[in-house]
C-alpha cells in the first residue's frame, strides 16, 4: 500500500514515540520493512507491517497495525493520541492519513474476525497501554492482545496460557485463539474477565481504608488478608499446573546464585553489597534447593485479577526487559512468591505517598499481615506438591535470596526510571540483609 522506501524512514521517527517500543534509550540506525499485508480492504484500510529495527549490535522486529483513511476525514478517535499518527502518505490509492489502526474502532472490530474467524463483535475499546502489546476489549467478552515486539518461536503468553488451560488450570482467562505467521505469534484472543478488578487496585483500596481509620490491619474494615490468602492458594495451584504442563527438573542453586551475584555486582556497592552477597551465597550451600519449574516470571499484584468466581492470573510474558531465553528458563517457584511478597511491600509504600500523615507503622503492619496470609495460603496448597525444597530452612533461604534479587532489580529499575521511588526497594534490601545476618 505504501512504498517501503517511504514508510521505513518515517517509522524510525514514529517508533521511539510509542510506549511499547522497548529501546527508547538507543539510537535507531535504520528500519527495514520485512513484510506487509492488507488485512482490511477499502476505506478505512488496515495494513499490517513487520519492521526490523537495527539498534547497533542487535535488531528487533516490531509489528505495526496501520490505519489509513483518505485525507480530510475527521478522526475523532485520534484526539489525544497525537503520537499515534504517522502523518500524510502517498499510497497506491491516493493521499491518506496513516495512524495506529488499533485506535480506529471500525478497523479494530474488523481485526477480530481476521485473527479468530469465528469471533465477531459490535464494540471495541482499548485497555491500558502495555509495554509489549496493545490490548483491545470487544463487547466486554473478548480481549485481544496484539503483540508489538515479535520474536521467533512461541510467545510465552500464548504458550503458557494454552498449556495451563490444557492441564485444567482454571484461573487463567480461557484462550480463544492465537494468530500465527510462520513461527511467530502475532496476536492472542482470550475470554475477557468482565467485572474483575486488579489485585493492585484492591490492595490500594484496603490501604486507604486502613490509613483513614488506623487500627490493627486484621481488624480493619478493608482487611485484605483473606484475599491475600486466596492469592496464595491460586499461586500454588499455578505452580502445580506449571509443573504438570512443562515438567520439573532439579533446581540448580549455583546457577541461580550466579545470576543474582551478577546483578548484585552491577547495582549495589559497599556494605550493602557485602551483606547481600552473604545472603545469596547461602544458596550455594544447600543440598536441595527444590525443583525448577516454568514460572510466571513477573508476578505481582497487578498480575492477578479478582473476579466473582475467584482470582485469575494474567500476563505470562515475563519481565519484558529480559531476553526471551531467560524469561522461559525454569527456576524456583519461590521466585514468583518473592515477586508477590515484594508487591505487598510496594502497595503500602505507594499508598502512603498520597498521605499527609506519617502512616509508616500502619504500612508495615499491613505488609506483615498480608505477607503472612499470602504465604499461609500458598503453603496450604504447595506444601506437599513436590515443587518446594523439603527442608523448611532451605525454603526460607531460597525465598530470601529471590526476594533480595527482586528488590535489587527494583533498585536498578527505580534508579533509571523513577528515582523518587528508589527508597522503597532500598529499604527492602537493607531489611532483607539485616534479617539474614
Amino acid at each position, binding site marked *: 500500500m505504501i512504498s517501503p522506501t517511504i514508510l521505513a524512514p518515517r517509522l524510525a521517527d514514529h517508533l521511539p514515540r510509542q510506549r511499547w517500543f522497548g529501546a527508547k534509550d538507543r539510537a535507531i540506525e535504520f528500519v527495514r520493512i520485512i513484510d506487509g499485508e492488507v488485512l482490511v480492504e477499502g476505506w478505512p484500510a488496515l495494513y499490517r507491517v513487520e519492521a526490523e529495527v537495527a539498534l547497533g549490535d542487535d535488531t528487533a522486529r516490531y509489528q505495526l497495525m496501520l490505519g489509513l483513511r483518505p485525507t480530510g476525514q475527521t478522526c*475523532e*478517535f485520534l484526539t489525544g493520541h497525537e503520537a499515534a499518527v504517522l502523518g500524510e502518505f502517498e499510497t497506491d490509492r491516493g493521499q491518506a492519513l496513516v495512524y495506529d489502526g488499533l485506535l480506529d*474502532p471500525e478497523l479494530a472490530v474488523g481485526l477480530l474476525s481476521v485473527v479468530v474467524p469465528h469471533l465477531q463483535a*459490535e*464494540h471495541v*475499546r482499548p485497555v491500558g497501554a502495555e509495554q509489549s502489546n496493545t490490548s483491545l*476489549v470487544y463487547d*466486554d467478552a473478548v480481549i485481544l492482545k496484539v503483540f508489538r515486539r515479535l520474536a521467533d518461536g512461541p510467545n510465552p503468553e500464548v504458550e503458557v496460557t494454552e498449556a495451563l488451560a490444557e492441564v485444567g488450570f482454571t484461573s487463567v482467562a480461557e484462550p480463544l485463539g492465537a494468530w500465527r505467521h510462520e513461527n511467530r505469534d502475532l496476536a492472542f484472543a482470550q475470554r475477557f474477565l*468482565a*467485572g*474483575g*478488578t*486488579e489485585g493492585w*487496585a*484492591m490492595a490500594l*483500596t*484496603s490501604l*486507604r*481504608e486502613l490509613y*483513614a481509620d488506623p487500627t490493627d490491619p486484621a*481488624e480493619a*474494615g*478493608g*482487611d485484605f488478608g*483473606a484475599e491475600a490468602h486466596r492469592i496464595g492458594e491460586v499461586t500454588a495451584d499455578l505452580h502445580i499446573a506449571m509443573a504438570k504442563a512443562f515438567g520439573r527438573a532439579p533446581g540448580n542453586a549455583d546457577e541461580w546464585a550466579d545470576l543474582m551475584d551478577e546483578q548484585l555486582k552491577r547495582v549495589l556497592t559497599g556494605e550493602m553489597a557485602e551483606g547481600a552477597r552473604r545472603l545469596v551465597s547461602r544458596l550455594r550451600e544447600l543440598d536441595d534447593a527444590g525443583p525448577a519449574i516454568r514460572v510466571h516470571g513477573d508476578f505481582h499484584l497487578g498480575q492477578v485479577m*479478582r473476579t*466473582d*468466581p475467584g482470582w485469575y492470573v494474567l500476563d505470562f510474558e515475563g519481565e519484558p526487559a529480559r531476553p526471551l531465553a531467560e524469561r522461559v528458563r525454569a527456576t524456583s517457584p519461590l521466585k514468583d512468591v518473592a515477586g508477590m511478597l515484594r508487591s505487598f511491600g510496594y502497595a503500602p509504600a505507594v499508598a502512603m505517598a498520597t498521605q499527609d500523615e506519617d502512616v509508616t507503622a500502619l504500612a508495615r503492619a499491613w505488609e506483615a499481615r498480608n505477607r503472612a496470609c499470602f504465604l499461609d495460603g500458598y503453603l496450604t496448597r504447595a506444601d506437599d506438591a513436590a515443587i518446594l525444597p523439603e527442608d523448611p530452612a532451605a525454603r526460607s533461604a531460597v525465598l530470601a535470596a529471590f526476594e533480595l534479587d527482586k528488590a535489587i532489580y527494583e533498585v536498578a529499575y527505580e534508579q533509571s526510571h523513577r528515582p523518587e521511588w528508589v527508597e522503597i526497594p532500598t529499604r527492602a534490601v537493607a531489611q532483607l540483609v539485616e534479617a539474614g545476618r
Partner: protein
Amino acid sequence: MTEIDREDERWYQRAVFYEVSVRSFFDANGDGTGDIQGLIEKLDYLSWLGVDCLWLLPFYSSPLRDGGYDISDYFTILPEYGKLGDAVRLIEEAHKRGIRIIADLVVNHTSDQHPWFAESRQDRDNPKANWYVWSDTDQRYPDARIIFTDTERSNWAWDPERQQYYWHRFFSHQPDLNFDNPEVQEALIGVLRFWLNLGLDGFRLDAVPYLFERDGTICENLKETHAFLKRIRHEVDAAFTGRVLLAEANQWPSDVVDYFGDGDECHMCFNFPLMPRMFMALRRAQRHPITEILAQTPDVPDGCQWGIFLRNHDELTLEMVTDEDRDYMWAEYAKDPRMKLNLGIRRRLAPLVDNDRRVMELFHALLFSLPGSPILYYGDEIGMGDNVFLGDRDGVRTPMQWAPDRNAGFSRADWAQLYSGPIMDPVYGFQALNVEAELRDPSSLLHWIQRMLAVRKRHPLFGVGSFEVLSAENPSVLAFIRELGDDVVLCVNNLSRFAQPVELSLQRFAGRTPIELLGRVPFPRIGELPYLLTLGSYGFYWFQITETALTQ
C-alpha cells in the same frame, strides 16, 4: 386513591413491601399495645410513603413466647390486636388505598398451647396422635442442625404426659406439625383458604424448608416439602387470583430457587445472602461481596421474584455467609457481645451504619435498584434506632416513633403500660427522631425515601428489568444496567467513604444522553470513549439512558 386490581396477577414483581408489626405500630385504644385499628389509622401515612403491600408479622392468637410465631389458634386474632372484624376492615381500607396485605403464616409448627398439640400429647392413640412428630428416642435425624443454638440443645424434647419425645426445629415450645399426615395438610390448606376468602393478598410462609423429616438427611429442602408447597400453590391458584406466596427459606440462592419450582411453587423467596454481603461490601469499600453473591444467584422462573431487604425483624442473618465472612461480620458489626444472637446480629439499619445518613441513602438506593422487590422494615424510613438491652429480638421491635409527644405518639396509655418503651437515647430518641418532625423537614430521610419510591414506581424495570453488572477498574464502584424494553437505567454506586472516579464502557449506548433520575439533570452525551463519572463519598447515581437529544 386507587383500588387494587385483582387482574394484575404479577403485582408483587413491581411492589414495594413494608414489614410491620401490629404490636409496634400504633395503639388506637390506648392499652399500651399496638392494634389493628391503629394500623388502619396510619394507612394514609403508608400510602403517602409509596408502599404497595404490607407484610404483617403474625397476628393470630398466641402465648407470645416467640413474637407470635407460636400460634395457638389460626382462626382468631390476638385479642390485644382486635377482632376478626378489625382484620377484615383493615384489608378493605388498605385495598381502598391501593395497598395490599400479606400476613405471616407459620406452617411448620404451632405453639405447644395449640389445642391440636394439647390433644396430641394426651396419649398415643387419640384422634390427633399423629399430628405432630413423636418418637421414643431423641437420637433420630442426627444430621439436622439446631437452629436456635443459643437456647436449644436438641431438636427433640421430652413430653412427660405422653412419655415420648416430640420434634421441634425451633424453640421447644414450638412442636413441628407432622406433614406426612394428610389430615394436617388439609387443616393447613383450610387455614390458607379461610384468610384468602377474607381478602388477604397472600402469605409470607415462615420456615418452609423444615416441613418434612426423613432418615439420613439434614431434614431441610426435602422433595416432599416441595411437593406440598406445590400443592398449596395449586389450591390457591384454583380458587383465587392475584395472591402471592412468599417463602422464608434461609438457604444458599442455588437451593432457594427450588422454592420457586418451575414457577409452580412460591411466587417469591427472600434473597437472604445478599443483605449481609451488602454490609460486607460497605466495610471493605469494594463491590465483590455483592457481585459475587449475585453471580451465584440463579435466574428465577417466569412470574417469580426475589424479596430483598436491608434489615428485618430477625437478626442480620449470618447463616448464609461463609465462616470466614461470619467472623468478619461479627467483628465489624457486633463488637458488643450483646449484639450477637444465634448466628446473627440484631440491630437496626441506622445503628449498624453508625447513623451515617449517606450510607443509609446509598443502601436504600441499592435496595431499590438491585434485582428483586424491596422490603422496608417499619421505622427504618425515619432512621430509627434499637435497644440492645431488650431480650431476644425485641430490641428492633420498639414502638414506632410518630411524634415528640408522650410515648412517642405511639400510645396514650400510661408509660408503665406500654408493651415496650420507645427509644429515648440522645441520638435515636423519639424526642428528636419521629415521623412528625421528618414530615416537616423537606430534607429528612423520610422525604428522601418517599421521593426515591416515587421515582422507582415510574420505572417497572426496577422490578422486572434485566440486570447486568458493568466492568469497572475501580473496585469501590458498583455499576449496573437495568433494562426493560426501551427503558434503560444505569445505576452507579460508590461503596467507599472517599470520593471515587470511574470509567464505564457505555459504547452500546453511544449517542444517548444520561439523565439523572432524581433531579432530571442531563449529563454529557455518551460517546465511543469510556464514560467518566466522579462520585462523592458513598455517592450514587441513577441515570435514565435516553434517546432524547437535549438541545435548546
